[in-house]
């Protein structure tokens, strides 16, 4: 199956903004990734985590804004890469203004139980882009298939 072209391999998943469905997204993403044999188990785990973080952020935003709308996840398995888009209808945010956390050596660090989601997303994916505004946020993640 190596080198097969999955160029029309676009899957779209719309879920209610409910915590129960975040696990479903992880399962779907894991299954789609497994269709292409070029992704290692470790890389699939990275992908699942990055997508899960982005969907969790979308879920939290819909909860904060009291929105009933669905969260839309698109996954495009194209030759050479897997591209995932997570869309919410929230009020947007500035990804450059996420506050830095105290240094790991600083005892203050233990007072911060949140705030690493977005940096995890960036660390895990090969490419992260964010389009965000008053009408919602689209996080796009790219995972390359061949560089492991």
């Amino acid at each position: 199956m190596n080198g097969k072209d999955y160029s029309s391999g676009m899957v779209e998943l719309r879920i209610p903004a409910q915590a129960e469905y975040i696990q479903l997204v992880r399962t779907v993403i894991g299954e789609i990734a497994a269709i292409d044999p070029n992704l290692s188990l470790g890389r699939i785990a990275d992908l699942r985590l990055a997508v899960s973080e982005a969907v969790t952020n979308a879920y939290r935003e819909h909860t904060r804004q009291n929105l009933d709308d669905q969260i839309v996840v698109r996954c495009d398995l194209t030759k050479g890469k897997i591209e995932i888009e997570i869309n919410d209808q929230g009020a947007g945010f500035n990804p450059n203004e996420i506050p830095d956390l105290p240094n790991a050596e600083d005892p203050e660090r233990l007072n911060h139980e949140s705030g690493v989601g977005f940096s995890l997303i960036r660390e895990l994916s090969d490419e992260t882009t964010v389009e965000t505004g008053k009408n919602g946020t689209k996080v796009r993640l790219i995972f390359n298939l061949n560089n492991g």
Partner: protein
Amino acid sequence: MTLELKEAEYNSCLVISIFGEIDMGSSPQLRTKVIRSVNEGHVNLILDLTSVDFLDSAGLGTIIGALRRVRSQNGDLLLVCPEERIQSIFMLCDLDKVFKFYLTSNEAVDAYKGINSL
């Protein structure tokens, strides 16, 4: 959706073994368990992550909160984490500098014995 939590009590510490996926949905269950354990006087904790299949930032946050809670009672929290994939999530967040990792729960229990016999 739900975590399975098992505990084993030793003279020197309490081991909480976690089975399943720790995410935003399930981590409150772990938080509750830790708070209850600390309230019952267990301030030297071991979290055994051997059977954790998935850990997200909400899970990390809960484990950070657990460390803060036991430290504030002059206790400690050790992690059993033989799975590289799970350990690497701590590393990505620089949290390998905050936690002590062991490969087996026996090693972690022994570490507490060492401290307590000083």
